[in-house]
């Protein structure tokens, strides 16, 4: 048997026998009130999240010789990074000419000039090295005839500083790119004996005199509060698509990291920017790859019309994601959705059975298995789906979390991946750039944490009351004699967010949505968790998640209301133009008892001056 053991491996199910910190843990902390001593753990570094960002950081730290714990609410390979299909970008030029500079430009332009160019430049430069490192770890990339890593086209990635045609830049493993990267990182973590604590749910950060020194978590399997103390803490908790009813995101993408950060009094950055992907499977939001449109699928409204001809007469269905999403939504608003509902048809039938089976097998499989619809015989209902969150926890280019959102590092705390905002995606992310972001910044965070640890910072003594709020929260949820079920509140939140703070935004809608959220937050006080047990209480977990969703949605809506311009993924019907004069700046938002407070910081522009984003 391999030396490696996952935390659970040490447990008799139902009862955790083995204490798992290093021994000096007992020396340096006092027992926090309400937490059993066996549930207090000490590691050099504590990472929350086991997607690409979290595991890359873990490997980096482990290789540097540090003791690292990775906490995750799902087993590592179940993280949502595994769902990514298309690819990961890097200017390898394996099949045709390509340059890091071109990638740099495309990302800046794609961000609608809101991305910070110093961060983008570092990311695209690091990209080839990351891909080679992945290959050396064993990722089964698809291969070119001469044995190199295969690359494909992807929207927004073009030649010659936007002047040329599409470029082969997306490194791929068939249509399972995220899956292979995630599994390979996990395999490497097994190899290097990274210690995972799977099915542990983050509750709060422990901050003492301006320094982050640990986290409190809920043990989902056994129940019980645990305290993880560390010198370097990383949040890599992923996206928050679950604020919306129609989303491509996993059930687990519930903004937990953001909720925790806000409750520690920290700001969030650029939360108004939420990317909608045009081809979400109707009712579910599960993603159908761009390939469906790429292979020549038609988008049809309820009159049987190929409506894209009125919005993008040249590119038609192949126009950029945000353009197609807006066109679809305009049709839906004009009552031309199918049966007057919020979806249109993606019609593939004219491609014929053979082409569909050969070129788009995955799309056929998904629509048959998930909706029971065979695209050979029937058109597939699709609607724009909440896909990616550009905003998040503000960090500097070393992934250090900024306490004031601008310059001041909150010592001991890092963030990376989709939950963070460096910002490399600005107002709109290019496809295949987010796997890259999560990997590059996961690695960079790991490196920076290791460098910090090498200066031998002292362990702080845990405050006695560090877990009391978390304990109170759990006890309240389990005992509250309420009547409101999490599922019902969540449904109202998600459906309204989709309608009122989605592809199109307007002042009235956003104000209405803000009031709805306030009302739902009031109803949350009357919540009823039916499952009263400690063990694997997913009812409790959903109630915890719901609080994070409600608080994060509040900031999304307030930020959207506040930004009176249209840029990238944020489209205000009442302010349809980009306004560089007033809005070429990042939003910083603090959620407070008196509402959301704002501040701003300038965009870092080094190389490319803002120009109109035309495709």
């Amino acid at each position, binding site marked *: *048997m391999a030396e490696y053991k996952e935390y659970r491996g040490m447990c008799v*199910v*139902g009862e955790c026998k083995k204490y798992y910190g290093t021994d000096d843990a007992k020396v340096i902390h006092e027992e926090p009130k309400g937490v059993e001593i066996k549930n207090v753990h000490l590691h050099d570094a504590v990472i929350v999240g086991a997607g690409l960002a979290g595991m890359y950081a873990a490997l980096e730290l482990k290789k540097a010789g540090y003791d690292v714990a990775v906490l995750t609410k799902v087993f590592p*390979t179940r993280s*949502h990074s*595994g769902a990514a299909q298309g690819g990961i970008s890097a200017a390898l030029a394996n099949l045709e000419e390509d340059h890091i500079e071109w990638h740099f430009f495309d990302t800046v332009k794609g961000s609608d000039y809101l991305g910070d160019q110093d961060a983008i430049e570092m990311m695209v430069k690091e990209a080839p090295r990351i891909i080679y490192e992945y290959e050396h770890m064993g990722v089964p990339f698809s291969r070119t005839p001469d044995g190199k890593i295969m690359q494909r086209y992807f929207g927004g990635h073009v030649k010659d500083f936007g002047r040329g045609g599409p470029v082969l830049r997306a490194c791929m493993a068939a249509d399972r790119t995220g899956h292979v990267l995630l599994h*390979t990182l996990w395999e490497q973590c097994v190899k290097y004996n990274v210690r995972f604590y799977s099915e542990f749910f983050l509750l709060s950060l422990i901050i003492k005199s301006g320094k982050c020194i640990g986290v409190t978590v809920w043990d989902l399997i056994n129940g019980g509060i645990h305290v993880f103390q560390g010198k370097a803490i990383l949040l890599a908790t992923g996206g928050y698509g679950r604020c919306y009813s129609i989303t491509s995101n996993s059930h687990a993408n519930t903004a937990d990291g953001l909720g925790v950060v806000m409750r520690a009094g920290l700001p969030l950055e650029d939360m108004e920017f939420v990317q909608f992907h045009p081809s979400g499977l109707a009712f579910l939001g599960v993603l159908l790859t761009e390939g469906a449109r790429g292979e020549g699928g038609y988008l049809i409204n309820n009159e049987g019309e190929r409506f894209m001809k009125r919005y993008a007469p040249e590119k038609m269905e192949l126009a950029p994601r945000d353009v197609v999403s807006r066109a679809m939504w305009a049709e839906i608003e004009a009552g031309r959705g199918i049966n007057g509902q919020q979806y249109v048809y993606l019609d593939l039938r004219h491609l014929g059975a053979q082409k569909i089976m050969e070129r788009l097998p995955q799309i056929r499989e998904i629509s048959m298995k998930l909706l029971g619809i065979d695209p050979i015989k029937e058109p597939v209902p699709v609607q724009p789906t909440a896909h990616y969150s550009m905003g998040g926890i503000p960090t500097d280019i070393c992934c250090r979390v900024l306490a004031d959102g601008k310059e001041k590092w909150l010592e001991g705390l890092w963030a990376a991946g989709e939950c963070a905002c460096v910002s490399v995606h600005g107002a709109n992310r290019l496809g295949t750039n987010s796997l890259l972001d999560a990997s590059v910044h996961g690695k960079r965070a790991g490196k920076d944490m290791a460098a910090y640890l090498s200066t031998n910072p002292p362990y702080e003594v845990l405050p006695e009351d560090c877990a009391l709020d978390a304990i109170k929260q759990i006890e309240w949820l389990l005992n509250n004699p309420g009547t409101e079920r999490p599922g019902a509140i*969540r449904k109202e939140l998600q459906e309204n967010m989709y309608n009122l703070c989605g592809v199109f935004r307007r002042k009235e809608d956003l104000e209405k949505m803000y009031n709805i959220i306030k009302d739902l937050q009031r109803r949350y006080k009357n919540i009823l968790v039916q499952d009263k047990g400690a063990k694997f209480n*997913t*009812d409790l977990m959903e109630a915890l998640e719901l609080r994070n969703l409600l608080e994060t949605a509040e900031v999304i809506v307030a930020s959207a209301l506040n930004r009176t311009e249209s840029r990238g993924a944020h489209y205000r019907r009442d302010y349809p133009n980009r306004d560089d004069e007033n809005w070429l700046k990042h939003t910083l938002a603090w959620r407070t008892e008196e509402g959301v407070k704002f501040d701003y910081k300038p965009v870092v522009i080094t190389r490319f001056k803002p120009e109109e984003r035309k495709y």
Partner: protein
Amino acid sequence: MAEYVFKIFRYDPEKDETGRVQEYRIDVQPGWTVLDALNYIKWFVDGTLSYRRACRHGICGSCGMTINGKNGLACETQIKDLGTTVITVEPLRGFPVIKDLIVDMEPLYDKLYAIKPYLITKTPPPTDKERLQSPEDRAKLDGKYECILCGCCTSSCPTYWADKNFLGPNALLKAARFLFDSRDEGYEERVSVIDDKHGVWRCHTIFNCVEACPKELNPTQAIVDLRKLILRGKL
């Protein structure tokens, strides 16, 4: 819309001595999967029902369970395809039940750790370049690398039920994924684990695992190929 009866295995470790079956009658919308029905029950009928789920499109491997006697992913099982309005849902067999439909997957992971589930190389890789691999060599990994670790195969394996030390189809498929990778140099280390009475030789090639795999992978073929590889290595 039609009324369906869901007979779901329930077990609460804090209350129940042993498992029981609870019935839920619900209206099922057209196009619903079994996961949609479970979600509906959990969110609007009975919040205590417990199961794992994440991606809800067959890629994370969280929702493996036994549905009308067959292993599969709840999120990819169309209710209407089951051809009946009475549906039983049980946790995966062969693993200890933690609660309701949630099983302890640790035994599955332990077998994976045992076969050293990572690329083993001795030759250093080229600097700032990928290792080369021909498309033909890469094709040897097809049908092996797509595994989502859902456990449906190992849970359906009668040999595993009888011998909990048997590595099982999941771990053996994973071993094949590395042993047939042209870049891997871990033959000795890995073969010493799988060339064992609890390894490849234990399998009776009954093909249950193939039928159970929701990703249409073929662990049995992988096991047969591994045997050939080992026999060839011994010549």
